[in-house]
């Protein structure tokens, strides 16, 4: 069975006919040529396919494309404005927050989504208090980014890059 679906991907309207079995990840990569989201485990365990799905970070390897007709997707490619990188992308570059780079598009999308969650005051597993203000220290960043694995082990600098953006955004 196939179905026609519409997606808005990195600001561009796209339509494709997909088999019902096609995941959003495969639809983007194999059908629309949008290769920023990466296929790591394909089972929802690594976070390499993280994008912003209707404004929130989500993995898309366990999402059937037909179930997301009309969705708005921002990939790592769509985070930049023209040649100007998103602050998170710039920080990843400057802090050397990657080695092979395969997990990086998922890491940066996840970080952008995570910073938005923290700004809304949403607590994490390591927050002292479910109600109080969120201070994005290293423990908080590590916990909130635990859904993105890096086989190179670039975690130290990933945390540093995110901390830099978080502290700039939260600066008085």
């Amino acid at each position: 069975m196939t179905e026609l679906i519409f997606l808005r991907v990195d600001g561009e309207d796209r339509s494709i006919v997909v088999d019902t079995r096609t995941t959003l990840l495969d639809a983007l990569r194999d059908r629309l040529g949008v290769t920023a989201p990466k296929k790591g485990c394909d089972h929802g365990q690594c976070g390499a396919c993280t994008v912003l799905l209707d404004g929130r970070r989500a993995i898309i390897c366990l999402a059937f494309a037909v179930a997301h007709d009309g969705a708005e997707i921002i990939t790592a490619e769509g985070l930049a404005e023209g040649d100007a990188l998103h602050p998170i992308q710039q920080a990843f570059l400057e802090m050397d927050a990657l080695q092979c780079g395969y997990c990086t598009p998922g890491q940066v999308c996840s970080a952008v989504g995570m910073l938005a969650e923290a700004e809304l005051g949403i607590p994490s597993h390591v927050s002292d208090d479910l109600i109080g203000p969120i201070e994005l220290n290293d423990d908080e960043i590590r916990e909130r980014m635990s859904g993105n694995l890096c086989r190179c082990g670039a975690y130290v600098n990933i945390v540093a890059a995110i901390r830099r953006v978080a502290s700039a955004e939260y600066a008085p």
Partner: protein
Amino acid sequence: MPFEFLRAEDVAGAVAVVTEHPDAVYLAGGTNLVDRMKLGVATPSLVVDISHLPLDQIVELPDGTVRIGAMVRNSDLAAHLLIRQRYPVLSQALLAGASGQLRNLATTAGNLLQRTRCVYFQDVSMPCNKRDPGSGCSAREGYTRYHAILGASAGCVAVHPSDMAVAMAALDASVVVMGRTGERSIRLVDLHRLPADAPHRDTVLTHGELITAVDLPPFSFSQHSAYRKVRDRASYAFALISVAAALDLGDRRDAAGRPTIRDVRIACGGVAHKPWRATAAENFLRGAAASVENFRDAADIELAQAETLGDNAFKVTMVRNTVALLLADLTRRQVGDVGGDLAGQEQKP
């Protein structure tokens, strides 16, 4: 395997079509179902998408019950101020599960109906009574670090993987279920089954029945609740064991100056085929002094029926210590440092 896809128009329509098709499944967030379909564990011929149905609200009913729509995302439920303030155990359990980007997809009903992560269940080349009734249990003589110590059967030693459900079990939640002939309510502790001789049936739901909401009844000490999860890595891992508890201390002190327990709720995860409400432990503790010794004794009474496997005997001690630690912590938060045998327990599990 190819499948037909249908976007449900409403609850009644979804229930009607799934009830009619023995091979149909509901699709919500997809984070477990789609994985099982990729693994060949689930092979539906019809997938009915209910993710967009208007079941995504959290409302307070006139009697104080908090009704959580079945399609409320795990992240939204954890973040909801009413839940954070009134039912902290539930926020904590949700935040201890999966990852941020999974919680944004996963739904309340989907979380309840996710299936075990027993590696043998997920490997279609291995015998498994849950996946293929009558084929045998590969886990019993296999790798059992993650398997059940309570309520298991000869045919199945799998555990229910949810954190959220453990908190809901402690909160006396009930699920609202729509079927072909109407609506019914099931206590959450009665939703999931013990495996017995039919481990392929996770719950008491009949085919086609759809969870539309979870109700959290009000109770006076729900804000004095917490969740503690023990796992093999610090984040993004299923529980080895977990404990959800709520504690109500009275004003009365015993001769040693210890507060007495007016009421208590305890549920354990990672130990059984269902969220395990520790009623024997609760009964022992009501009216008893709040002391680590009593907390441990209560856990021991509950765990007297434990049966361990090759790799999971550690869970008995782990549950006992975690129950004691969590209740000691809840005691300390309500009455401050009471000294005696509660002192320093936080640091010495």
